[in-house]
Every structure is written in structure tokens, then in C-alpha cells.
């Protein structure tokens, strides 16, 4: 029986964001935007969705009078990512 892939993570941009955040302590919004080649508007929407389900934490501060948004993966996010990768492995092994 295949485990269903988490619909929140099974989306191009959200998966990219989570894959970036999984290996780091925290990352600035601009860093994520650069690495994912996404637009600020689209990324904001997807970051908000990840935040709403509790997969990431978003903090907004000011640095040198400029707004600074940083994102950090949560424990729930790490577990969800882990489950997603395991489910993905199942699908890929079955396809061999």
C-alpha cells in the first residue's frame, strides 16, 4: 500500500523551499527567491501556505532600515519532509 504524497509538499515551489531549508538553520527570503528562481509574489504565497500548516516559521525584522524576512523549518516540517522522501522512495522503487 502506497503512502499518499503530502499535497502541501508535492508542489514544485513549496518542495524547493523545504529542500533548501532542510539543511540550514535559517535562510533569508531573498536567498530562497534567488535559489528557486521564483517571483517575490508567488514565493510569498507559498511560504504563507507552508507557515499555515506549521512546516516553517517566518520572522520579520528590520535590518539597516530594510525589512528582513527569514524562514526556518520546524520539527513538524522536518518530519513531514522525511515522510515525503520515504513515500517518494516507495514510488520510485515500485517503478523500477
Amino acid at each position, binding site marked *: 500500500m502506497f503512502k499518499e504524497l503530502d499535497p502541501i509538499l508535492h508542489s*514544485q515551489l513549496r*518542495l524547493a523551499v523545504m*529542500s*533548501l531549508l532542510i*539543511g*540550514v*538553520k535559517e535562510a533569508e527570503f531573498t536567498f530562497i527567491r534567488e535559489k528557486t528562481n521564483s517571483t517575490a509574489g*508567488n514565493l510569498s504565497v507559498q511560504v504563507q501556505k507552508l507557515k499555515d500548516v506549521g512546516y516553517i516559521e517566518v520572522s520579520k525584522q528590520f535590518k539597516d532600515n530594510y525589512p528582513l524576512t527569514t524562514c526556518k523549518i520546524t520539527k513538524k516540517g522536518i518530519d513531514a519532509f522525511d515522510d515525503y522522501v520515504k513515500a*517518494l522512495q516507495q514510488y*520510485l522503487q515500485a517503478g523500477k
Partner: protein
Amino acid sequence: MEEEKQLTEVESLRIITEMIQKTKKEFYESGIAAILWGSVVGFCGIYGYLAFTFNWPFKREVWYLTFFAIIPQIIIVIKERKPRKVKQYIDGVGAAWIAFAVTMVGMAVYNTAIPFTVAQNFKAEHLELLLHNTQANTTENIAPFIPNFSSVYLLIYAFPTLVTGIGRRFKPMLYGAVICYLCFIVSCFTANTIDLLLQSIAAISCWLIPGIILSNRYRKAKATHN
């Protein structure tokens, strides 16, 4: 990157791999700190050896350079951290270098305090340390000292270098650590002046050479990244 495109499993795997690789590129070590410490300790060891051999000045004082090297080290840390838009976890390798820095400060304190404390203890017990020359049949009063201290330093140099070599699968540091351990073994049987030379060899092989290799890699990675 478009959002609501339907993903296949293979595409998902490709995204995960690609993003993890992109993050990895952010954390290439510049090697500057390794070059700094490899050069400073390497120079102090060689100079110390030559100064003792040819009776040059600043035989021991040359090691104060290592204290001054802390200033550029702090600047390097601040400079490398500033432009990064992403923060890394401190892993085992990073923790080993933090422990190394603390240990080196502790060693400096130990090196300074112990001879003084031993002298005080001797004084309290009405004892003194004498050095007797059997050939000249002379005896002189000497201050307590820690014998063959360079060997202990060599062991401490090797530790975080070996952790980095294994943890990062970075062969130049692995070989450097092996050379350092060999220098330690040799130092247990050699005179103090030779130990200085061994310390220099260890610093060059543990840090300077791997640092130069890291620096070249960093420049290449940055060139392909930009």
C-alpha cells in the same frame, strides 16, 4: 519556478537534489583561516628553531604572534558571516574547532600558570628545583617548567584536523592529521629545538597546505557560481 505544475516522482527527487546542492555551494570554506594559522604557527616554529640554533633574539617571544593572529581571525569570521543570507547549523566539525580554540586558550593559561603555581608550592614546602651539570659539576637554581610541551600541542593540533578530514571527507586534512600524529611520536624522543621544527611541519601540513587547496576550490566554486 512555476507553482501549481503537477509533479512526477522523478521531478520531485530532482528538485530535492538540486536545492540541496545549491545550499551546499553556499558553504564552501574559503580556507583563509587555515592559511592564516598554518602560516603563523609554521613561521613561529621555524623561527624558534633557528633562533635557538643560531642564538637569535625573541626565541620564545615569537609565539606571541599567535595571540596577534586572533585579530585577523576575528575579522575573517565577521567578514565571512556578513554577506551570507543563510545560516548553517554548527555540526560536529564546527564544534571540534570551537573546542580546539577553547583548548588552546586553556593551554596558554596552563602554560603560564603551572610553572608559577609549582614554584609557589615548592616555596611553601621549602623546596627548590636544581639543575646539575655532571660534566662541569655546576648546579644552578631553575624555575619549574613543563617538559616537552610541544608534544602536547601536536596532539591537540591533530585532533580537530582529523575530525575535519574524516567528517568532511577532505583528504588533505586527513593526511595532515596523520603527519601531525607522526610528528607527535617523533617529538616524544627529540630535543625541544627539534620539536619546534616538528610543530612547524605539523602546522604546514595540517592547515597551510589544506588551506591553500580549500582556497583554490572556493575560488573555482565562486567563479562557476557567478
